[in-house]
């Protein structure tokens, strides 16, 4: 019985690996960017299954939510923006329209040049060296799993991954949460969210579906955060699910969205990092070490922390998708005719 199971699973693994490689190859050689994005999303979903097979359900959940779930729509949004820009350019250039009637954005299909072959050969050599190095690292591989298990009782949670992320190596996670916020700040600093200047033409079906789905998605996100203490889940996964809800809102052209104020959004984005930082400092004051939680209340502390972070992560990821700060925030005045824009700009 067991051996039959092993054979089936091995077969499944082989099939999975082959499909992943095939998808990656298709993605790379596709000249149509839209097709490539679809391949990318498929790749992410199958990769998530691969992570499950490698006994890393937390990574699998993150891969599914962020790798396939959020990055895919991000690419699609970028593609739409590129197409819109191309259309605008074509309007001034009727010649090109006649030559290239295909509406889709295409990459030039490249001829295989000698340089490309050299690069490919070098990459293969490098990959070979890496594989060889991995091969000759002495087994069994050392790690910190035992230590983690030994201290799990004092961490306040039962899930080892959450214990490492938020307690043992909470300092890393604090800075990671900042990196995510930093990404959102950077995107806000560059431009406004490009809401199309047209009346919404979303179908009523989509709108009511979104209205029905939103509470459910928020509930799922909240459950994932809560579940993080016991099994797979946590702030990043919950936050990614919340951001999916926000992305749904963003693509459904609700009229009030472009008029959002920036302050409540900023408060939401900063909430998680600020709570994290305050708790870190609280540790210095009460427990005499940065980010140390009293073992008895650690569980409650961590849950509060994760909930706050999930909200901020969700908002920051949605800000990536929206692609800029709210339309009313820090507007640049348009050019005035009597005041020419000199070269002084951007010294």
């Amino acid at each position, binding site marked *: 019985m067991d051996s039959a199971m092993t054979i089936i699973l091995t077969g499944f693994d082989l099939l999975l690996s082959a499909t992943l490689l095939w998808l990656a190859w298709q993605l790379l050689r596709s000249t149509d960017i839209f097709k490539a994005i679809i391949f990318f999303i498929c790749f992410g979903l199958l990769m998530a299954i691969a992570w499950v097979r490698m006994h890393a359900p937390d990574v699998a959940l993150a891969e599914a939510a962020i790798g396939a779930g959020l990055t895919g729509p991000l690419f699609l949004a970028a593609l739409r923006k590129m197409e819109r820009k191309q259309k605008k350019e074509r309007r001034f250039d009727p010649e090109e329209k006649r030559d290239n009637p295909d509406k889709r954005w295409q990459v030039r299909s490249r001829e295989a040049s000698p340089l490309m072959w050299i690069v490919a050969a070098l990459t293969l050599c490098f990959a070979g060296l890496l594989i060889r190095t991995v091969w000759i690292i002495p087994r069994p591989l050392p790690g910190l799993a035992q230590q983690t298990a030994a201290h799990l009782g004092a961490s306040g949670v039962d899930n080892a991954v959450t214990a490492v992320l938020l307690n043992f*190596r909470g300092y*890393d996670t604090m800075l990671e949460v900042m*990196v995510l916020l930093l990404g959102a700040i950077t995107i806000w*600093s560059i431009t406004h969210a490009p809401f199309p200047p047209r009346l919404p033409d979303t179908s009523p079906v989509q709108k009511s579906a979104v209205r029905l789905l939103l509470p459910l998605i928020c509930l799922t996100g909240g459950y994932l955060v809560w579940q993080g203490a016991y099994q797979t889940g946590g702030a990043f996964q919950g936050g990614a699910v919340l951001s999916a809800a926000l992305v749904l809102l963003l693509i459904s052209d609700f009229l009030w969205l472009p008029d959002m104020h920036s302050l409540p959004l900023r408060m939401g984005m900063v909430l998680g990092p600020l709570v994290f930082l305050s708790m870190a400092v609280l540790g210095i004051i009460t427990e005499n070490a940065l980010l140390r939680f009293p073992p008895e209340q650690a569980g409650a502390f961590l849950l509060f922390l994760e909930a706050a972070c999930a909200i901020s992560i969700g908002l920051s990821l949605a800000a990536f998708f929206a692609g800029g700060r709210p339309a009313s925030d820090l507007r*640049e005045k348009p050019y005035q005719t009597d005041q020419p824009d000199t070269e*002084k700009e951007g010294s």
Partner: protein
Amino acid sequence: MVSAESWIAVPVVVPLAAALLSFLVRRGSLFISLAAAIINVLAAAILVNQFFVSGPAQYAVGGWDPPLGISLRTDGPALIMLVLTGLTGVAISLYAWGYFSFRIDQPARAGRPEKQERFFWPLWMLQLTGLNGLFLSGDIFNIYVTLELIGVSAAGLAALSGKSASITAALRYLLVSLLGSMSYLLGVVFLYKTYGVLDLGLLQKMAGPTPGVIAALAVMSVGLLLKTAIFPMHFWLPPAHANALAPVSAILSGLVVKGSFFLLFRLWFDIFSPALPHTAFSLMGALGAGAILWGGIQALRQQRLKLLIAYSTISQLGYLLIAFPLAFTGGNSQTWSAVLFMASGHACAKIAMFMSAGTIMLHLGHDRIRELAGIRAYLPVTAFAYAAAGVNLMGLPPSGGFIGKWMMLIASLSTHQWLWALVLLAGSFLAVAYVFRVVEQLFVIPPDAPFIERHPRAGLLEWPALILALISLLMGLIAPYPLRLLDTGMAPQVVQVIGG
């Protein structure tokens, strides 16, 4: 009661809090950030004091000792970088205050300077957090996280000016920097799989020339060289640094590249020196020699002041790499002091230069080197700051650059490595040429020089630059103090390697 040990967390926590608050509360962001920069310097001073009293310190974050938890640590090199970043950080904050109030008073496009100012402060504070975190961290994975903070905020800062040239350069910068981080992360994976720990101190005890370590160091070093813009991987630096706003150029050229260089230094000399073959050090020296010559020649060919300064950064970074073979083959611990001297002298001088270039650009509206004549008439302090910083780049006494180059020359002559000595001299001559190209313009006042009105806030633009330039110029005179930090600060193993 809060213990004295906890001061080590302040250089990370305070700028981080300032970043969050200045993103949230925009009106007071300038003063929040300025206060954070000042507290950061005070904390650095207190840490130095603690170091002299009780030696290198280690601090377990969260109360979890390594290998389970993350440790922060102070030692001589880390403290030198911390103090350097703190001091220049205050100067940059003051300069940015003057710079943005100038721009907001005379906007080329209404609303744009306000936007730049609002986003500058949180990004700059996150950059400071990342740099301080990198210097203090004792954990290779945590260092990866700080590298991400540094890389993303640097790209955000570089894109701040909003011109399409700067956004293109910033995106390229971001991609390069992510590539470097990924490469570093791959190395972290190899190390963890080989030894099962991430703590620098534990790795130092275990490290040997095993295939895992060699592979790890190779990919990590390539990633870090890419981030440090070492020739021939420097292509991304000039456009990114030259197209940014002036305070941003100063941050990028003076501090950001030093962060990844510092990490390279730690890995090669502090942690893994027993595991590395001699040829690796010579290779680093060769890259450095290429950087010195190529950067110097390119700097001579530039027509724009900011591009010239950016290429000079590439050239000066080369010196730091030449020290690798010198320190390894029979040199002494002095070579290492030389490297940190060069790095801090260059940081101060380069920040002062970019500040001066920014001031000139604000007043003239351009930075074409041929048309700079007459600046001294109305910006005398700026002209002097530029020249004083130039002295450091040329390596004339008593600047920090002179001490650094002198130590390296002695090391290369006493170990009969004439080639490096020749490169050092050639680099200095190139520096003389490209510094004088600008200085001769600055100090000439042609009879028909246009009259340009000084801005009332120009003091905030001029004095931070001058003070940093003077620090770099007089660094040679205060040399014994930083050296004392290094003498007690080296891990015993390192002293043994470079001393014996």
